[in-house]
């Protein structure tokens, strides 16, 4: 199966992983490993959810795990463009404050 996310920007300074408007299955182990690999080769990894209306809880948890891996390092992991209902979902599963949310990619610089 093809990956549901796209890597729209990739450099040593910043890598942006973009998710589509609707996601309806869990991130696979391969997805998670690939995103961890992307995080390891960049200073700033941003999950761009600006188009995303609906996403399973499992994706938010995976973003949190990647964020946890970067703890104690200089790397920064952001989630940007989060729509209100996705933010509410993150809040209800106690992740809103754990994920570093920003309004736009520019704010994540």
């Amino acid at each position, binding site marked *: 199966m093809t990956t549901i996310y796209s890597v729209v920007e990739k450099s040593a300074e910043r890598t942006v992983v973009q998710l589509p408007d609707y996601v309806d299955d*869990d991130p696979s182990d391969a997805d998670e490993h690939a995103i961890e690999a992307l995080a390891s080769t960049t200073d700033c990894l941003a999950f761009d959810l600006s188009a995303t*209306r609906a996403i399973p809880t*499992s994706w938010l948890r995976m973003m949190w795990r990647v964020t946890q891996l970067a703890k104690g390092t200089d790397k920064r992991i952001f989630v940007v463009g989060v729509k209100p*209902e*996705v933010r509410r979902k993150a809040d*209800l599963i106690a992740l809103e404050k754990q994920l570093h949310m920003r309004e736009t990619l520019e704010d994540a610089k």
Partner: protein
Amino acid sequence: MTQAGLGRLIGLSQGRVSQLERGGTVPVEYATRLQDVLELRDPLPVSAAEPNAPRFMLAPADQLLPVPLTISSWSRPRLVSGDFHAVRVVGNAVLVVAGDVAGRGAQAFPGASYAQGLIQGLTSNLGVVPELQAFAESVLQSCARVSTALAAAFALFRRSGRHHVAVDVVTFGYPAPVVLHGTSGQSALPASRIELRSPVGGEGAALRFELRGGWLMLLASDGLFTRFGAGSEEDGRRELVAWQRGARRDEPLEGFLDRAAPSGDDESALLVSWRVWDDEIEASVEERAPRIEFVRRVRQRVFAVVGEERADRFANCLVDAIANACRHAHEGRRVWLRYRDAPLRFTVEIEDRGAGIGRGAEKKLAGIDYMKQSVDVDFRRAMPFGTICTLSMEKEAK
């Protein structure tokens, strides 16, 4: 047509036909053979393929165009009795009759065949919907004229809206039906009920149901209702409602019958159901696009009625439910998604063929807390196995 003529039609030997002509006792062979023809287990003999020959057949469900009903029957003992069912299309409605002729076993069977044939004859090429009470009374009176004491429930199903079916029921000496909502698992009470006197003696009732969304109706003899409970018809009715409210409500009816009780003569049931959906797909776990298109369509429809905030809430619950189903869909790696836009609420069902959800196991499902705080959530066992998750949201914000 005489009993002997009917015997000849279904291919009985000349000796048996002569026996019937002499008014002899009804051979079990006759009853069994006729039942085979009635239930379409066996076609009529070629020699009987006369253009004007009566054909006693239940209409297949897929021909019931006015209302897309699913109809199944169950009886015990299965072979020979006075219980019968008839399903007929009349005008833009579907007429369903469940009846029981007085007498036991094979002795009651010719009377049941007569009643069934009579209903078939009265409704053949009937372009208009009959007045139900008058129709039921005429059937009872005609049966009485040939010494056949009939107890029956007559139900007329008419589609009255996209998700609405109006059902008129007239019963004479036969239990009133039990109506259960397919999704919410609640019993539906009749909108009206009038007590009647049977034209041939005894009591009856005229009931009207206004049904919305998915539902099922059980038309059953009192003996069968008894088999659901601990000894009385009313007890059986209560047990049925409890079964339908529970997580096992998609299991076949037979699974809830008391099989230890000795077999009686008065045990049959006709199950009429309608599971109406506005959108449904069967999708592979591996193929994401059809599922995403389904989510997109549902979100758009919900958005058009309740706006962005609640549409996104519904869609976010839906994707969590689909993700759970895909994670657990072992057998065949398929999931089934269904959507209904009813007048008061939106409903989706997400079904998988996984190991099923045990007591308390739903707490472990991803996103369950979010779902429960956002929409109404229900889990039940799918058939033959797996889980059905139902999400619903009222259109009017609480």
